[in-house]
């Protein structure tokens, strides 16, 4: 089992020669849930990518990343394949190329049943065999969440995962993610723009501005 608690000490992040994050110190225990808040361009997405280990000085191996779920703001799905295939892609990191090829070309009943169950949890079970690009933006966002849930990660990073959903649906999804993270003991870091939602579910809120952490805790 990989230890995926977070321990950043005075970390900086440079992309294309430009400093994006400054002096980031952040510790998150295994199983802890935190929300990132901040205006656009504050560095929330960059911080999530740093935690994901795809940028920065301490890049994570593919094996380590296979234990980290990542829900992207722009869904980042393959548009012209069925929803089932996008959901099943959540486990690519745990499979060999040939296993994943078989899974993508001929998913078996067990895999489809698991994908169906996850889609049921996010409220779009009836879309299992629909083409992904025929779905609305909100439905695609839920497919992206389903992909992350199907992955069964140890840490879940979510970049504005409910940005394209209405308020009641957004609340339900955050509740689902929060609940699942608690049940499965996942570390859960989510960036949100809805402060009310963040306060309702997350005892610890980290605020960012201009690439720096300006506050960290429940008293913000």
């Amino acid at each position, binding site marked *: 089992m990989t230890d995926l608690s977070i321990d950043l000490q005075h970390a900086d992040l440079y992309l294309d020669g430009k400093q994006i994050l400054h002096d980031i110190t952040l510790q998150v225990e295994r199983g802890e849930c935190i929300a990132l808040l901040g205006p656009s361009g504050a560095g929330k997405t960059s911080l999530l*990518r740093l935690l*994901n280990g*795809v940028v920065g000085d301490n890049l994570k191996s*593919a*094996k*380590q*990343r*296979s*234990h*980290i*779920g*990542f829900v*992207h703001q*722009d*869904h*980042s*799905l*393959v*548009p*012209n*394949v069925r929803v089932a295939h996008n959901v099943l*892609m*959540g486990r*690519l*990191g*745990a*499979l060999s*190329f040939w296993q*994943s*090829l078989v899974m*993508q070309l001929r998913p078996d009943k067990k895999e489809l049943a698991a994908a169906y169950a996850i889609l049921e949890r996010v409220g779009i079970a009836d879309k299992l065999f629909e083409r992904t690009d025929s779905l609305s933006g909100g439905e695609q966002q839920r497919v*992206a969440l389903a992909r*992350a849930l199907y*992955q069964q*990660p140890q840490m879940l990073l979510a970049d504005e995962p409910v940005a394209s959903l209405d308020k009641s649906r957004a609340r339900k999804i955050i509740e689902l993610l929060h609940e699942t993270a608690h049940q499965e003991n996942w570390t859960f870091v989510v960036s949100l723009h809805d402060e009310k939602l963040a306060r309702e579910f997350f005892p610890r809120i980290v605020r960012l501005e201009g690439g720096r952490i300006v506050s960290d805790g429940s008293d913000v």
Partner: protein
Amino acid sequence: MSNRARVLVGIAAASLAAYLYLDISIRDLLPHGDGVRIVKQFAAAALSPEANPQNIFIAVLVTIKYAVAAITLAFALAMPLSVIASSSFWAGCGVPCQALRWMVRCFIALMRSVHELLWAVLLLAAMGLSPISAVIAIAIPYAGTLAKVFSDIIDESSLKAETALHSIGASRLQKFFFGRLPQAIPDILSYAFYRFECALRSSAILGFFGFPTIGYYIKLEFDNLNYSKVWAYLYVLLAMVVVVEYYSMQLRRRFVA
């Protein structure tokens, strides 16, 4: 003068220079001597096409068979070549991978830089007038063109899904084959369907070299001055291209939409 204006002026100057250098005169457009009579006879025959249904059926069938065989072979060659020639397949790979990629790109350029008619001449000399010479003559340059265009389509596909799969630990092959390639498939199929129309025309033209496609009958009737029959074959060729275009459009809609 802006860069764009400079480029436009350069293109215009090159075009003008080409016409001046070739010494083209507007009078050359007019048929001269016996040409006027031939043009009149040929144009008049357009209104009274004379068909031999049996020959037409055989010619159409052979033309389609050659085109289908050639495009299938070209597609089968082009797919793996296009993957190896695409830069996205080798992203993050070292110098040996890039060297292999450039070798394949040069090979593809060689395949498509020689026209199918020239390949036909070479293969006729080497293999004689067998159907396989015609199929290979079309398939080689078509595979080169398909591979070049397919690799460009693959490289221009959206990076987003691939990035998402990278973040959850997918391997390089998984990212490419499940994140990038599926997005390129509709455009790849669309272009392959278009090239099938071109393959029909190429197959017809190879008839001028003696292969029994529709071009063979066109040349035969033209040499015998049977312009009415020439027109019948030309109309059939046109109808064939229109029908194939219609069906390929339906297929494109089904796969691409």
